[in-house]
């Protein structure tokens, strides 16, 4: 039912809330109770002076009666119902619900948002726990050392006739193992509790670089204006909370970025964009490589009218080398991505551009036009085999005639069932 046609329901709700009898309200505004009854059941249109009078008697804002619940609440409620497809929600009565019970509606909307935040947090933590090589190695070390201590200690306790040489040896082993255990425990605590050592970042160097670039809207003004910039440019922002930088990665990025900006100045990029939205054609117009145009599109000023791009590059082992996140496409914090991403297809057919419409399974994902290509990062040589780097540009798309290919973030947090590319069980499903 249209929002305006529910004015009667809102009047009825407010009247009951104020404990005013239908007869009394009708009398106050000079209409018959029967007519008010028709209005309250949305069988008569209402507006003008009569609506003003009713709002005055009910002591509510006119807009609350005429417009009902705010669009944001309605949108959040729609999302809440979509998030629980297994529950048969009366979607057609959403506005009626929000209008009659605004407080409850806000509560449902708020809780749905909170649930989403918590789910995201759990996903991030699970991703981290299951892919963190330091944690896995440290826990294995702890259990192995504890086993050794327990075994040696029980020999000392249970063997009355143990020779002195063996006794001394097991004492020494326990002493050594307890030292190892203390060291490993200390480093684990320090790792899991950032407050223990604030100088130790939980993020990878790539994460830190991306955060710093994001703080500047992925736009290094000084480079655009041809000034010299190095890693110190980021760390001198006066913020104590700035992530610690791994300088080699940052300097390497800045060197490449400067070179690309010099080759593709903003005006040239804008000219290319007016002619085509195909990155390969843009590269031809700008007389640069496809990876360079990917980089330039991803790391440039965020302005209204500009398409928003995400970008990823990875080596042949799948490790990320550079990234720029984009809303609607999640990147794993550690480990590698989904094998179904076009960038990995590109690695299997170097120098051949690949384009696909993809969408990640799960919440908040948006369809993306994914352009990918793998090119050698080493100079051509008869004496050295090439090492390829895959580049992928992600462009948000509003709609498409073609169904997007469903992909994941990575297997560990991927809800796609019976995926032929799955290499490990997901914490979100029943596994393989």
């Amino acid at each position, binding site marked *: 039912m249209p929002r305006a046609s529910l004015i009667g329901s809102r009047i009825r709700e407010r009247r009951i809330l104020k404990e005013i009898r239908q007869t009394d309200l009708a009398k106050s505004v000079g209409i018959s109770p029967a007519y008010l009854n028709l209005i309250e059941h949305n069988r008569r249109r209402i507006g003008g002076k009569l609506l003003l009078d009713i709002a005055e008697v009910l002591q509510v804002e006119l807009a609350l009666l005429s417009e009902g619940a705010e669009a944001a609440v309605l949108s959040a409620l729609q999302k809440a119902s979509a998030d629980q497809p297994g529950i048969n929600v009366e979607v057609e009565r959403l506005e009626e619900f929000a209008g009659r019970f605004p407080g409850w509606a806000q509560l449902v909307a708020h809780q749905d948002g909170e649930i989403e935040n918590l789910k995201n947090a759990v996903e991030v933590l699970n991703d981290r726990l299951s892919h963190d090589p330091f944690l896995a190695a440290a826990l294995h070390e702890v259990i*192995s050392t*504890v*086993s050794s201590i327990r*075994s040696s200690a029980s020999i000392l306790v249970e063997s009355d006739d143990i020779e002195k040489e063996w006794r001394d040896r097991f004492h020494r082993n326990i002493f050594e193992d307890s030292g190892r255990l203390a060291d490993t425990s200390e480093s684990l605590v320090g790792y899991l509790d950032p407050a223990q050592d604030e100088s130790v970042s939980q993020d990878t160097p790539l994460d830190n670089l991306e955060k710093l670039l994001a703080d500047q809207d992925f736009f290094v003004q000084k480079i655009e204006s041809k000034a010299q910039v190095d890693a110190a440019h980021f760390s001198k922002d006066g913020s104590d909370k700035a992530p610690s930088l791994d300088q080699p990665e940052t300097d390497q990025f800045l060197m490449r970025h400067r070179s690309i900006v010099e080759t593709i100045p903003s005006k040239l990029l804008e000219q290319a964009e007016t002619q085509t939205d195909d990155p390969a054609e843009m590269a031809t117009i700008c007389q640069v490589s496809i990876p360079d145009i990917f980089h330039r599109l991803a790391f440039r000023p965020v302005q209204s009218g500009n398409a928003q791009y995400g970008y990823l590059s990875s080596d042949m082992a799948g490790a990320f080398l550079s990234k720029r996140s984009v809303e609607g496409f999640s990147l794993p914090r550690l480990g590698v991505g989904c094998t179904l991403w076009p960038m990995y297809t590109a690695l299997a057919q170097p120098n051949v551009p690949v384009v696909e419409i993809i969408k990640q399974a799960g919440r908040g994902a948006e369809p993306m036009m994914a352009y990918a290509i793998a090119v050698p990062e080493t100079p051509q040589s008869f004496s050295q085999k090439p090492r390829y780097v895959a580049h992928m540009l992600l462009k948000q798309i509003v709609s498409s005639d073609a169904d997007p290919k469903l992909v994941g973030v990575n297997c560990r947090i991927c809800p796609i069932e019976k995926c032929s590319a799955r290499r490990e069980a997901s914490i979100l499903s029943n596994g393989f």
Partner: protein
Amino acid sequence: MGNSVLLIEDEPNIIEAISFILSRDGWTVHSHSNGADASDEVLRRMPDVVVLDVMLPGKTGFEVLQEIRANVETAKIPVLMLTARGQSKDREKAESFGANMYMTKPFSNSEVLEKIKALVA
């Protein structure tokens, strides 16, 4: 008893403790600490029982177990898997690859001894 055990484990103090317990019980104990050539060592020693850790440098215990079972000469040697991982899926994996018994760390000495004895009984 004169039976022999090959202990494939990369933690030297665990090797020492288990070796001590088994030696005192009359077993001949050999140890090996690398997964990469562990199955060759099994073939060379032909022990009565193999105690095999899962987390090894070079190759995992599961891979070593598969190699032991794939070789007709070593295929029937009883294997006790010893690992820091206590997850049921690891136990299932070990059993599916042909482990005769499975123990998780930290273990008790008496339990290790009992299981090894049971494997040759």
